[in-house]
């Protein structure tokens, strides 16, 4: 198992390297685009352009340029956003990370609990009216665009019904750090949590229901029943234990993407200044250094999530483990 983890980690490093090379080539070597001008952004006086050319070594060979960029990004973390008044990019990302993490962890907790409950209920109650009902609700959840849902939530909670007891506690849009005001941190995140999790609840409830129904027909579940175990134990220890393998794998990948700044729409709609919001801002103002940094940040978490999911899968399913 240990060698498996070590091998997987080395592989992760290799993939990250390839990603950074690709990102570099896309941003710096797209034909017809002058990287200096792209980095400088909108205000590009000749002095800034010359400075950029020197700093990024744009007149030097390709590997050197790549090396300099990586140094800026990872080693001295001195990458600067020219369109944002010389703001240091890497610290900015790390400052935005807690907001994203708060949003994503809360939403993940909600969606895991609710989707498991819904998925299992639908599978166990198969044949009754509740099963298709739950699945229709789930389908609505999957189909509803998160930005629409978020805007509707805002319209209702900030505008129309704000003065009623239902929504009077909702603070104005924005993120309050946990350390400065825990109550407000919580209140400001409730609606974003629910909005973000609805899509995933819909998806995961359907996935789990399908998985449970499939496993229930397996021979070993019949064997478990023939052993004289209670239906509850058969469900928990035998059926779910096998159904959750797919669930956990998919969850790991989705969660990793979200941590890396994938909840762009939710963050923008609710004014939460996380990594997704930063990415959105950088995209609208074509701030190349920030875009590069957020892409690498996001890629790192996706690659890490992939590796962790592989390890988790091996832990959950003994057949996958290397002997």
């Amino acid at each position, binding site marked *: 198992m240990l060698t498996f983890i070590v091998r997987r980690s080395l592989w992760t490093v290799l993939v990250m390297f390839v990603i950074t090379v690709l990102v570099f080539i896309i941003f710096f070597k797209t034909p017809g685009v002058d990287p200096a001008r792209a980095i400088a952004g909108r205000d590009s006086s000749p002095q800034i352009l010359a400075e950029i050319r020197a700093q990024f070594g744009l007149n030097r060979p390709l590997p050197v340029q790549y090396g300099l960029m990586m140094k800026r990004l990872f080693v001295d973390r001195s990458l600067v956003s020219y369109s944002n008044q010389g703001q240091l990019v890497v610290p900015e990302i790390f400052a935005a990370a807690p907001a994203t993490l708060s949003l994503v962890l809360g939403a993940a907790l909600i969606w895991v609990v609710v989707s498991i409950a819904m998925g299992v209920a639908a599978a166990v109650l198969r044949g009754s009216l509740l099963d298709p009902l739950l699945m229709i609700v789930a389908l609505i959840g999957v189909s509803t665009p998160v930005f629409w849902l978020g805007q509707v939530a805002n319209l209702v909670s900030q505008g129309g019904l704000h003065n009623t007891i239902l929504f009077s506690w909702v603070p104005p849009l924005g993120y309050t750090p946990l350390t400065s005001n825990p109550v407000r941190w919580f209140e400001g995140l409730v609606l974003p949590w629910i909005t973000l999790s609805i899509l995933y609840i819909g998806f995961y409830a359907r996935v789990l229901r399908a998985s449970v129904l499939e496993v229930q027909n397996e021979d070993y579940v*019949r064997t478990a*029943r*023939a052993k004289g175990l209670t239906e509850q134990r058969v469900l928990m220890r035998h059926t779910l234990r096998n159904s959750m393998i797919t669930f956990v794998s998919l969850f790991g990948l989705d969660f990793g993407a979200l941590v890396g700044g994938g909840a762009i729409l939710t963050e923008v709609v609710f004014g939460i200044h996380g990594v997704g919001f930063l990415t959105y801002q950088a995209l609208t103002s074509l701030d190349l250094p920030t875009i590069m940094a957020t892409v690498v940040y996001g890629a790192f978490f996706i690659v890490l999530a992939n590796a962790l999911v592989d390890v988790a899968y091996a832990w959950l399913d003994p057949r996958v483990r290397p002997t």
Partner: protein
Amino acid sequence: MSEPLLEVRDLKVSFRTDDGLVRAVDGVSLTLAEGETLGIVGESGSGKSVTMMSVMRLITDPNAQFSGEVFYKGRDLMKLNQGQIRSIRGSGIGMIFQDPMTSLNPVYKVGWQIAEQIRAHEQVSSAAARDRAIQLLTAVGIPQAARRVDDYPHHFSGGMRQRVMIAMAVSCNPDVLIADEPTTALDVTIQAQILKLIRKLKEDFGTAVVLITHDMGVVADMADRIAVMYAGRVIEQGTGRDLFYDPQHPYTWGLLGSIARLDRPRPRRLAAIPGLPPSLLRLPEGCAFSDRCAHSFDLCATRPELSARLGTTHLDACHLSPQQKKDLRVATIHPELVPETP
């Protein structure tokens, strides 16, 4: 005669489908005495598995309908509630299934799975249950049981997995072991080993065994009494001697006639019973075998009941008279295949 251990009385199992009512089991009656081995033989779709799965109440299809009674030690299993039937499953009646490759949960160690069964029925510590598991694995012939008890099912071959299944099924010393085609998925040499193991356990613990199979050779060796099933009905029942030396039902003749014999001159064609079994959606009113039977006559339009037409414990469900049967059998099965009366 003492009370039978297990008695199935006129069991009927049907499934509602879009195409109509599928009558998988159409009035089956069987008895099993203590320590006895009952073989149930029949082709695929004859209702053998559904019968025994219904005994254990393992059929969870909401479209299944049951009627009839199943007496185990005097109690009707069909009328028990979930809690009561659970206490019988595994400890009173154990069951092993056809495909050992998929019958064990792949994510738990085999020792854990055996211990789980023990602890579901008896108050023992997990350490004690684990020791029992090791003993059971040794008893079923798994070498180095103390080490292999912590292995996962995929570390075992098919034959070994079936041994693990058997160990698990007998772990609580059940009175009855139902073996549903235990060797069908295994190759012939392993088959012999598994059957030998079942016989040994039967002798050591006095367990009654119900052996379901489509292989006549398996029951010839193992069973005290054999029931032949066709289209959800039992059409002949008797001892091995009765069935192999004095078969009464034309279907049984067909089964015996179709066995390829190594000790006779090679026939030019293997004998087969012409036609196909009837669809379980549209079972005939009379004898289910009549449209394939070379000897059917007008009486076959009424359903023949399984009864003792010879005045012994050899039962059959055919309207032909015993004398007609004797004459026709010799003509039907190749004469060389019918040995002299022993």
